[in-house]
């Protein structure tokens, strides 16, 4: 295999999600001050790519659509071992939904030219749509497999893939090129070696705007996205919050009465 593309999304660190607030005027989320990390499942995708490369040679490219400030997060992927990174960044990309994002990533893949495999995380932790991998494949006119929990090379252009389904799995044989989206069961991402951090400093991050990609602007950004945000709210819960106090015996008695009143016993 000569070239593997790993789609990587820098996402807001979930440790800091309680700092998210809402701008009611613009109906958008304010995420200032929230650091970004590599989307956790994308690390599993990268690990899979690196282990194929380490066994069979070739090159691993990170591909990301994001604002320029995420370059430190891409460097983390380079430090883990990717060979180079391509950052697709342009104000006209802002507000893209999954289909528009897939158009942009597909343009990135075409710009790269030849490749054998595209690996994605099954979903991201912020949007959690799990849609981009399949859509990217469709737009590249390539087959795709999601929910991948095992992956190995059978012959040069043949992969054996295990896909998780309800209460079981499906084993598939697929020809390259192909787009694969992975679950965390697939592998354990390696720790970044210190030498990797040093090496990453001199690796190339290629930034491309729509000047280079030439995507029809009717297909991308807020305007080009078929789905539109019609409302956004922070979740609030309304519950009775009745506190039961007393000795354990008394508490148990109250609980049993409640459960009885609910019609369960």
């Amino acid at each position, binding site marked *: 295999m000569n070239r593997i593309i790993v789609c990587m999304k820098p996402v807001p660190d*979930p440790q800091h*999600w309680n700092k*998210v607030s809402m701008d009611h005027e613009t109906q958008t*989320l304010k995420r200032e001050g929230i650091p970004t990390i590599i989307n956790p499942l994308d690390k599993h995708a990268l690990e899979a790519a690196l282990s194929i490369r380490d066994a069979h040679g070739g090159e691993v490219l990170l591909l990301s659509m994001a604002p320029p400030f995420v370059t430190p997060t891409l460097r983390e992927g380079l430090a883990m071992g990717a060979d180079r990174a391509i950052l697709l960044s342009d104000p006209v990309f802002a507000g893209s*939904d999954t289909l528009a994002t897939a158009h942009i990533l597909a343009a990135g893949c075409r710009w790269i030219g030849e490749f054998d495999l595209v690996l994605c995380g099954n979903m991201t*932790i*912020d949007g*959690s*749509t*799990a849609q981009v*991998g*399949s*859509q990217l494949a*469709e737009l590249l006119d390539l*087959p*795709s*497999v*999601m*929910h991948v929990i095992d992956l190995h090379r059978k012959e040069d252009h043949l992969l*054996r893939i295990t*896909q*998780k*389904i*309800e*209460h079981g799995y*499906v*084993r*598939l*044989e*697929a020809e390259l090129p*192909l787009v694969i989206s992975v679950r965390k069961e697939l592998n354990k991402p390696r720790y970044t070696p210190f030498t990797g951090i040093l090496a990453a400093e001199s690796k190339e991050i290629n930034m491309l705007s729509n000047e280079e990609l030439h995507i029809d602007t009717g297909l991308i950004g807020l305007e080009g996205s*078929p*789905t*539109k*945000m*019609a*409302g*956004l709210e*922070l*979740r609030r*819960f309304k*519950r*009775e*919050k*009745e*506190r*039961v*106090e007393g000795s*354990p015996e008394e*508490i*148990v008695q109250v*609980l*049993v009465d*409640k*459960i*009885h009143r*609910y*019609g*369960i*016993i």
Partner: protein
Amino acid sequence: MNKNDHDGIWVFAEQRNAELHEVTLELLGKARGLAGQNQGKVTAIILGQGIKPLAQTLLNYGADSVLVADNPVLDPYRLIPYSLVFEKLIKEYHPEILLMGATFMGVELAPRVAARVRTGLSAHCVDLKLDKDGKLLQVVPGWGGGVIATIACPDHRPQMATVMPGTMKPLSPEERKGEIKEIEINLPDKDLGPKVLEIKREKAEGLPLEKAEVVVAGGWGVGSREDWKQVEELAGVLGGAVGTTRPPVDEGWAEEGQMIGQSGKTVRPKLYMGIGISGVMHHVVGMDQSEHIITINSDANAEIFETSDVIVVEDFRKILPKLIQKIRERVER
């Protein structure tokens, strides 16, 4: 696809081995409700082999008509053949809305179909509504469920959504009449994507979590495999199912299929009991629509109490053994 002359609500009737996925019936129930508001027709789409007998079930659960593609090339499910069939049907019949379950299959298929016909798709919806113009409003959780977004697809058709299993209610089936129409399939015999070598499935054991009237969920606070048995026992005497947060799955006390929340199941039982659970949003989004919620946590400031009807601030070990015994006495009486 543009929006003129589109009509009807379509539901993808997901099956494997000629067994319908539960979510299909839930989607039909919801589609029926939406169609009632809008005088639209509900059509179920079923693909596979030897699946014609399921068409009547689909009618009984709320479909007005069923499109059946019965062909060996569609069994077992493969992504590319299924996408090609959907493309053909969408271009021929112009549905206004297309719903699929947010299942392993639906989550893979829906985006591919949406991209193929160039329309919008929203993921893992927990509710669907129509606005005053009859447009579909798709309610989706984001950011671990801390944010609820409403998505619309104003200018492209069909309006597509995948829906979390367990969030919508099926109708009670009645004998209904409707049109069952078979469709011709002519797929190329190459370029149909990966080959299926083997499918392995275990029979689901016990009561599926999404269907249980009572869910007793345990968290990291349960502390050990030994004490986890108390959670199982309580669920047992209540005739319910056991749910879990993430940490007990990581510890091996519970199975991944029992996990409730953002990356697990959504449940809305009559009674949810949470034992030793802190109430992180990731978990809460999967249970906050339960009818009654009782939680036990030793920390008086536990966040789960914000989502509780009945709150017990105690070490669960002081409560559960007595509670199990009391309930057992009661049901055996």
